[in-house]
């Protein structure tokens, strides 16, 4: 775990956050006995979790523990993977996301996602942000909407003079912020971030982290990260996933879920403690 900006011990980072504002408990996702499998093998099993409004929830754990699988269940992105199967329930504001008759397109429109690798469309910077609103019929005041999204993603000042330039001309960190702008331009309720900074340098990473703190006021954020420092810095709540090895089968399970400070300073599970103190993974 050498990534991150400072090498301050995780515990200190987390303790510094301990006195941060108290966590509101307004449930957005109520996840009950979630099991997701590709083919016959379950990738995660029996996950129970509540995710709260206007809070940053981090999902951490060793690689292969199903963090990405988990977050992709939340906006039905796994529907696109052939052979993927979901059991259990995910209630989003009380409604079952996987109930029959629920349109995954509508789900994804409300629950936005930012991916590990920045994936701007091969279009202009402006069109990248404007494409979603256009498709969804939010054509009114499109310019203002684009500006607002770019400001929201802390990118406006850097690109306002070259909105017509191809998005692929931006740097990696800028591309990732553009993807965040693209996601918030359609005004989702939730933003899922799947290791959004794993391919970025420390400066770009810190820009994204500051941005997340800003976004928290308007959105509910769930971030997958393999970087404990990052989770300790940005998250209010942290879920620790681990691998259960059983008869040669490796399945991701939720080990512990609590306020970030508690997870990093006083975990109640031995496996969490081993992981956050660096004795594992």
């Amino acid at each position, binding site marked *: 775990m050498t990534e991150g900006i400072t090498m301050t011990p995780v515990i200190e980072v987390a303790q510094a956050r301990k006195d941060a504002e108290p966590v509101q408990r307004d449930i957005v996702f109520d996840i009950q006995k979630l099991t997701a499998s590709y083919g016959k093998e379950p990738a995660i099993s029996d996950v129970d979790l509540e995710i709260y409004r206007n809070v940053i929830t981090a999902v951490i754990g060793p690689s292969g523990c199903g963090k990405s699988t988990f977050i992709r269940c939340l906006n039905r992105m796994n529907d696109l993977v052939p052979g993927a199967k979901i059991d259990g329930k995910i209630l989003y504001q009380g409604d079952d996301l996987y109930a029959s008759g629920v349109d995954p*397109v509508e789900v994804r429109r409300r629950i936005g996602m930012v991916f590990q690798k920045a994936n701007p469309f091969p279009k202009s910077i402006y069109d990248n942000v404007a494409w979603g609103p256009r498709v969804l019929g939010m054509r009114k005041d499109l310019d203002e909407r684009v500006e607002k999204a770019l400001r929201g993603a802390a990118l406006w000042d850097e690109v306002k003079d070259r909105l017509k330039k191809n998005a692929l001309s931006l740097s990696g960190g800028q591309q990732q912020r553009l993807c965040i702008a693209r996601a918030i331009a359609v005004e989702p309720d939730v933003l899922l971030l799947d290791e959004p900074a794993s391919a970025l340098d420390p400066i770009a990473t810190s820009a994204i982290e500051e941005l997340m703190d800003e976004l928290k006021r308007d959105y509910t954020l769930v971030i997958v990260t393999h970087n404990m420092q990052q989770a300790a810095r940005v998250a209010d709540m942290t879920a620790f996933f681990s691998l259960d090895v059983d008869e040669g089968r490796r399945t991701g399970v939720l080990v512990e879920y609590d306020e970030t400070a508690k997870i990093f300073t006083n975990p109640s599970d031995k496996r969490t403690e081993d992981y956050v103190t660096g004795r594992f993974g």
Partner: protein
Amino acid sequence: MNRDRRRRIVNRTMEAVATVAAIVAIAVLAIVVISVAKRGAGAIGWDFFTKPQALFGQPGGGIANALVGTALLVVMACAMALPVGVLTAVYLTEFAPRRLAVPIQVVIDVLAGLPTIVIGIFVYALLVIGHTQSGIAGAFALAIIMLPLVARATQEVLLLVPSTLREASLALGVRRWRTVLGVILPSSVGGILTGTVLAVARAAGETAPLLFTSSIFANSVQTDVTKALPNIPVLIFTYSEQPDPALHEQAWAAALVLMAFVLVASLAAKALLARSRRKLVG
């Protein structure tokens, strides 16, 4: 809400359109195959394969002369196209400097895209005007069509050969030519074979290059390659232009034989390719 419903309907419609398009393509294939099989099967029998074409206006007869001729033409074309195609591919992947690789690549692509009738009339101008039609001229025209196919297929498989294999051999102090002939080409044999089978399938059914080079031929089995060789494609072509229903039936039967050969060869090549790819890439 209304807008979302419209979006969903548009999406469904487009998905349906794409699915129907694929069904149409398969239906056309099925219709062609079935109508050829249905009309051609009746005339197929022992005699059809063993007897040569009947004299004009007489009933019966088969396609023995055309079968022999087509086999000869394709074998000769192979003998011409295979070495040149494979060696060109070896040059492009192993030796060529960029300056030469680009124009040669362009030329091969151009050759692959030339209208076959143009190739036919070129060989006509080169070898037939002033002489006569001949099996050699026909085979040469077919070879020009096979050449880019063989070269491309070989090139593709040569590029698949892992560079570690190349380096391993060169690191042992083995000379480049030994590396190419002893290591690289042998590990690409499967791919080259696939390309050859596809090229043969293509050449066996080509008519345009033969019209001007090997189309005026005898009704008997002919093995003298300095004379025009009877062949299946031209036989189908000329029969199809005749009003006589008996000849149509023969044309259907010959078409069935040709199509069966081409389709089986294509499928075999595909299977072969999958196997040799697995061997190389793992």
